């Protein structure tokens, strides 16, 4: 009977103040969507690092006037370094072939380039791409090197964009969460006010504190859970509509977002939504009911 009583109180409570409840749920779901998107992006950057760091190379471009001896010395340096997983040598001719494939769409550009305008290079894969700095130090001083390029830097630019988008959505999530908290607090206050007579009687006859507070806290939790569910649905729709359809070309580069990760957001959002609402409701009640 107590469970039934509490559940009934929760439903009546949410319905009594339905506009506020809707506002609370919407802000909560927007905030949680942003949080989910941010976490997904974080996971995505991680996945992309794993994926691309396997492919990543350090390119050591040699100077035009490099001598055979210098070339040998550089090769020896690369081969003896413990950081190197594998390395290959690319001649000017091979570089041109690769260039032609890469820029097949702009024949004018390709026509303007000849064998001598592209440098020969060593392509080095490191066991751990994060060790680039160490490796660069080992090889830097060698004569005959024109430039050393870490492809990680190019990737880093992509990641930087990701990180700033992620940060932005985190900020939006935090701001919306703050608004949601205020709404939860306000809703609970209104609920407590409209039930002040019942609360007074309950205190008088010695109802336990949890029994007095539970309907209010649960009210907030239910709203939080609905918000989380809506946020999750928004994420899922977002993934299907944006990534799987509209921006599919982009996902080919950015590695696809696995559906499993999106599903993972459901318990996360539900947990965060429920806990945050419950906490806010409880704190509000401590100030407002003084039970």
């Amino acid at each position, binding site marked *: *009977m*107590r469970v039934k*009583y509490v559940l009934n109180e929760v439903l009546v409570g949410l319905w009594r103040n339905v506009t506020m409840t809707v506002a609370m749920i919407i802000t909560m779901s927007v905030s949680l969507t942003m949080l989910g998107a941010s976490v997904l992006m974080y996971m995505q950057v991680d996945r992309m690092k794993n994926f691309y760091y396997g492919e990543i190379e350090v390119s050591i471009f040699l100077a035009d006037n490099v001598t055979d001896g210098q070339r040998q010395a550089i090769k020896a340096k690369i081969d003896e370094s413990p950081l190197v997983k594998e390395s290959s040598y690319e001649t000017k001719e091979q570089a041109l072939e690769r260039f032609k494939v890469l820029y097949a769409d702009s024949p004018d550009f390709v026509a303007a380039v000849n064998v001598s305008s592209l440098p020969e290079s060593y392509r080095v894969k490191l066991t751990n791409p994060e060790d680039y700095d160490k490796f660069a130090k080992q090889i830097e001083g060698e004569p005959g090197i024109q430039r050393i390029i870490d492809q990680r830097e190019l990737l880093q630019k992509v990641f930087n964009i990701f990180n700033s988008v992620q940060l932005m959505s985190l900020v939006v999530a935090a701001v919306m969460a703050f608004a949601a908290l205020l709404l939860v607090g306000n809703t609970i206050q209104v609920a407590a006010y409209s039930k002040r*007579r*019942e609360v*007074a*009687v*309950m*205190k*008088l*006859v*010695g*109802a*336990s*504190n949890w*029994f*007095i507070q539970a309907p209010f806290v649960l009210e907030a939790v239910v709203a939080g859970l609905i918000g989380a569910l809506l946020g999750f649905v928004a994420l899922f729709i977002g993934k299907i509509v944006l990534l799987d359809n509209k921006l599919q070309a982009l996902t080919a580069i950015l590695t696809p977002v696995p559906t499993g990760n999106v599903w993972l957001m459901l318990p996360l959002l539900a947990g965060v939504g429920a806990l945050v609402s419950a906490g806010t409701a409880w704190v509000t009640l401590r100030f407002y009911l003084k039970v």
Partner: protein
Amino acid sequence: MIQLENVTKTYPKASRPSLDNVSVGIEKGEFVFFIGPSGSGKSTIIKLLLKEVQATRGKVVVNAKDVTSLRSWKIPHFRRSIGCVFQDFRLLPNRTAYENVAFALEVIGKTKAVARRVVPEVLELVGLGGKEHRYPHELSGGEQQRVAVARAFVNRPLILLADEPTGNLDPDTSIEIMRLLDRINRTGTTVVMVTHDSNIVNQMRRRVIEIESGRIVRDQARGVYG
């Protein structure tokens, strides 16, 4: 049953204490009137006994429990041994007489089956048999106060506190309520009543404790309002 030892209560911002070094003992089964002018501090005693307010100094013992050092999470359980009646009845307007009394039982964890057994019984005791399903606005003031008494008594408390229970009632109805409280007192329940209704005090001839400016100025067995 109730023991106040050198109790002083000063409200924040008040210039003088509401209760000033008050000591009084009330035995089990007693019927005690606290009388005195408005603002004399008599209602503060009720609040202290319920631990609605905390004594500034001194010790309050109720039911062999030291209320002054009672932890706040234990207060709800402590209050179940005390019934309360107020001048303004404090009934829930959207519930019938039966539901009002049953509510008090249900919120402390009693089942509906228990309520079905004891609520009609206690409503009969207070003389409301047959009016169980009336709403407060369908009852007279005296009847509403009977519902309040039934609610206070349904849990068979050891102590019944009544804060000006006849304050809103006409003299005849007041007498009826007093008869009811007297009957409850005869079941062994200690009754503490705060009032300034001189008629009632004079008729009942019970222990009278008079308070003035926060001090006990008279404590008389079988006293009158004076």
